[in-house]
C-alpha cells in the first residue's frame, strides 16, 4: 500500500515562528499536494508539485511556500506563522494522471 507520512501529528507554534511541515511518500508518485482542512470550508489547495523542483500555487498560497528537492519529499513552509494559519494540514500524492489521491494522516497545527 502507498504510504504518505507527515512528520508530526500535532504541532504548537508561536506567532512569528518559521514552521516546517514535512511529507514523504514511498510510491514514486509524480504529484504531491498540500491542503488545509477547516470546518465548513472543506479542503483548500495551498500548493502542488508535479515534478521535482516544480511547484504551482493553489487557491490559498499566501503566507506559505513549498520545497520539493527530491521526488519523495514535499515540504510546506510557513515563513512567519500567524493565528489564522491554525488548521489541519493534509499532504497527498498521486500518479501523474491524478486518478487517486493518497493522503497522509494530517498535522494539526496550532499557532498561539
Amino acid at each position, binding site marked *: 500500500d502507498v504510504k504518505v507520512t507527515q512528520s508530526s501529528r500535532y504541532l504548537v507554534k508561536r506567532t512569528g515562528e518559521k514552521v516546517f511541515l514535512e511529507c514523504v511518500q514511498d510510491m514514486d508518485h509524480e*504529484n504531491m499536494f498540500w491542503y488545509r482542512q477547516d470546518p*465548513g470550508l472543506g479542503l483548500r489547495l495551498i500548493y502542488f508539485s508535479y515534478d521535482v523542483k516544480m511547484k504551482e500555487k493553489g487557491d490559498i498560497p499566501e503566507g506559505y511556500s513549498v520545497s520539493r528537492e527530491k521526488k519523495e519529499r514535499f515540504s510546506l513552509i510557513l515563513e512567519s506563522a500567524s493565528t489564522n494559519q491554525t488548521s489541519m494540514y493534509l499532504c497527498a500524492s498521486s500518479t501523474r494522471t491524478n486518478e487517486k489521491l493518497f493522503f497522509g494522516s494530517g498535522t494539526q497545527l496550532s499557532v498561539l
Partner: protein
Amino acid sequence: AQSVTQLDSQVPVFEEAPVELRCNYSSSVSVYLFWYVQYPNQGLQLLLKYLSGSTLVESINGFEAEFNKSQTSFHLRKPSVHISDTAEYFCAVRVNWDSSASKIIFGSGTRLSIRP
C-alpha cells in the same frame, strides 16, 4: 475558474433510509470527478470516481454516483444507510493545469450523520 459546490453542509438521516449528497461542478472541459470520505478520526480515502465510460459508478460499500453532464452534477446516493456510513463526504474534480499536469479541487464537504 473550475469549482465544486456541495449544497448541504450537514445531512441527518435515519438508519436504513435512503440518502443523496449533492455535488455540482463547474468546468468547461472534460472532467474527472471523485467522492472522498473521511470517517471519524481517520484520513481521507477515495470512495468512487468517474473518469470516462458509464456515467453510473459504484463503490464497494453500496454508494453510487451518476455523472450528469447537462446538469453538471455528480450526486452521491445510497438506498439504505448504516451507522457505519457516518462520515464527512467530499466531492472533488480534476482540473487540468497544462498539457502534462493537473490538480484536484475539493468541495466544502457534507457531514452525514446517521440516527438509529
